[in-house]
């Protein structure tokens, strides 16, 4: 397998396109699952529903509640998709990464934490109880998934001996990391759902708080938040492929296609998981995160460290 290299400057433009394509695919798949649960036939309109919903939100009026902090709200709204694209910059597509930073893993983590601030601002800024509650629910969730998430990333970095994502991919030449770091992989998938406030981790936008952070956003603002959430999920799926599933390695097909296929598979798995579960209550999940996930991921890191040192 050819080693991953730094792409030309123009490859940066490819990142939002690839990520957007993945995100659209994921959203369509979610609509298909919805339609099947509803007992409707899966038609072209169902598959294109994310696109038509985008059109609908583009023409919808933006609104603002009185005495809202529009500067903070709009900043937060814009930051969500921006953070997703920035995080995906370090993901290698086949053997080209738009920006193969020497600290790619830390960069990914930092950009994904930007969502904390973004959602908080988007919720707080609307001057609505629902938004406020949604905002700090997400922070509670962040504090419970972030440490296991970091330990999973650290485990991968330890296994590869580098924080550079391309080195991680190269280190999986013989054996995919998912094989000997299953706990880290599971923790990463859990946090992938959590960081994109999707599926069982959608307390920040739950129906029990009338949409939470989303409650008062309409029109373009809402579109950016929803699109950003799908982009984040797609970015996390693509990163999971680079970190655990051998990146673009695979027979016959070109490496970039393998990356896309594997990312789509991981994304599909995540979307299916989120359709099968009820929302995890944060008062319950905090304890699981700290009492179960952190020790498990620490143990996984220890095992990997011992194997590497041996």
């Amino acid at each position, binding site marked *: 397998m050819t080693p991953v290299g730094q792409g030309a400057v123009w490859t940066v433009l490819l990142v939002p396109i690839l990520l957007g394509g993945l995100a659209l695919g994921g959203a369509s798949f979610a609509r298909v699952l919805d339609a099947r649960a509803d007992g409707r036939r899966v038609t072209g309109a169902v598959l294109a529903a994310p696109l*038509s919903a985008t059109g609908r939100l583009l023409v919808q009026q933006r609104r603002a509640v009185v005495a809202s902090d529009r500067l903070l709200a709009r900043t937060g709204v814009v930051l969500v998709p921006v953070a997703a694209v920035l995080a995906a910059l370090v993901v290698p597509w086949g053997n080209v990464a738009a920006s193969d930073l020497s600290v790619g893993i830390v960069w990914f983590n930092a950009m994904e934490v930007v969502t904390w601030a973004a959602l908080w601002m988007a919720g707080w800024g609307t001057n609505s109880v629902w938004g406020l509650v949604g905002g700090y629910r997400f922070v509670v969730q962040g504090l419970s998934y972030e440490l296991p998430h970091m330990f999973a990333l650290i485990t991968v970095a330890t296994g590869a001996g580098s924080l550079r994502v391309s080195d991680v991919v190269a280190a999986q030449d013989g054996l995919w990391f998912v094989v000997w770091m299953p706990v880290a992989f599971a923790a990463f998938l859990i946090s992938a759902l959590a960081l994109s406030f999707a599926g069982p981790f959608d307390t920040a936008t739950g129906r029990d708080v*009338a949409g939470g952070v989303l409650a008062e956003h309409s029109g373009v603002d809402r579109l950016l938040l929803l699109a950003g959430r799908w982009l984040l999920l797609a970015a996390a799926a693509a990163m999971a492929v680079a970190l655990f599933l051998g990146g673009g390695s695979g027979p016959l097909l070109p490496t970039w296609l393998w990356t896309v296929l594997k990312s789509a598979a991981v994304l599909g798995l995540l979307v299916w998981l989120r359709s099968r579960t009820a929302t995890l209550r944060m008062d319950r999940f905090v304890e699981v995160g700290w009492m179960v996930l952190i020790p498990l991921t620490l143990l996984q890191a220890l095992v990997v460290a011992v194997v590497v040192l041996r």
Partner: protein
Amino acid sequence: MDLMRWSTPRVLVVPVRAGRAVRLDVERLMRERGWESAASPADADLLVVCGTPDADTGAAVDRVWNLLGSPRARADIPVRHGVAERLDRARAELGDRPGRPSGRTSGRRRPAPGDRPDDSDDDTRTDHDGDVAGLPMAERAPDRDGLTLDRLHLTLGPVLPDWPAGLVVRLAVQGDVVQTAAVEVWGEPGGRWDGPPAAAALDSLARLLSVCGAATATRRARRLRDEVLAGSADPAALNRFARRLRRSWTLRWATDGVGRLDGRHGDLTGDATQRCRRWLDVVAGSPPVPGEDRTAAVLTALPGLLEGQELATVRVVVASLDPDLESSGTGATS
């Protein structure tokens, strides 16, 4: 720009007491057409009022209607006759409207206090120092962790998705922890439920599942409910559905230990999980436990169950008790 005609609308369904038959029709048609249920006014472009609201509820619905961003349309459906036509008309109205009326892209309204469904009326606030932009400031009160923190007033209902028709709960919250709760009932009741008990159980279940964030199970419950009502339900499918939900540990997590009632409450005894199990038994075919109407008892017990809980729990408690105000004779109380 005919984007609105192309996309499916998002509907804010307003249930009204005595409007159950209309609501069931509306929800069935929405499901068949793939129209989504909105979570808040900002999310919606179609407001559907199921039944004839009383004056108070009507005023609340009008306030919510003002919060919908354009393009928007409204369908008031007082009786079961011609539901589909009314929905079609509202839908067409939505498509005909130009996207941006009067050239304003971001409407900044100045609502009176209590204009939002999440904002309480002024009379519930006792002591506030001043007000800003017409909205009173938060006040302080002791909380369960021994800190004195700001508290906000919040009114749940009457316009709230997955909420029992006619129920209004006024809360004082700190963060999302409820300090005080008061229950009111708005509107007049309709007749008793004469449909199959399994459909009633599935209807209640769908609300509980939706509040618990189990979106796919909610859709399946509504679909099965419509099939039971149409008489086309497959007992095996009902059994499968009940079995799957009994096994779901994420659902159990959301309901375990929530809203515990003691043995004096008949078939409502126990926590939300046990009440959910009883509905699942009815869905799977066992006859419902006969007993007197417990709506009044639920309304009495509700404030005590809600105080000290988080907002998420409040919604689960209410959904798991699901006071049947649509057919109950309980009058307006507060």
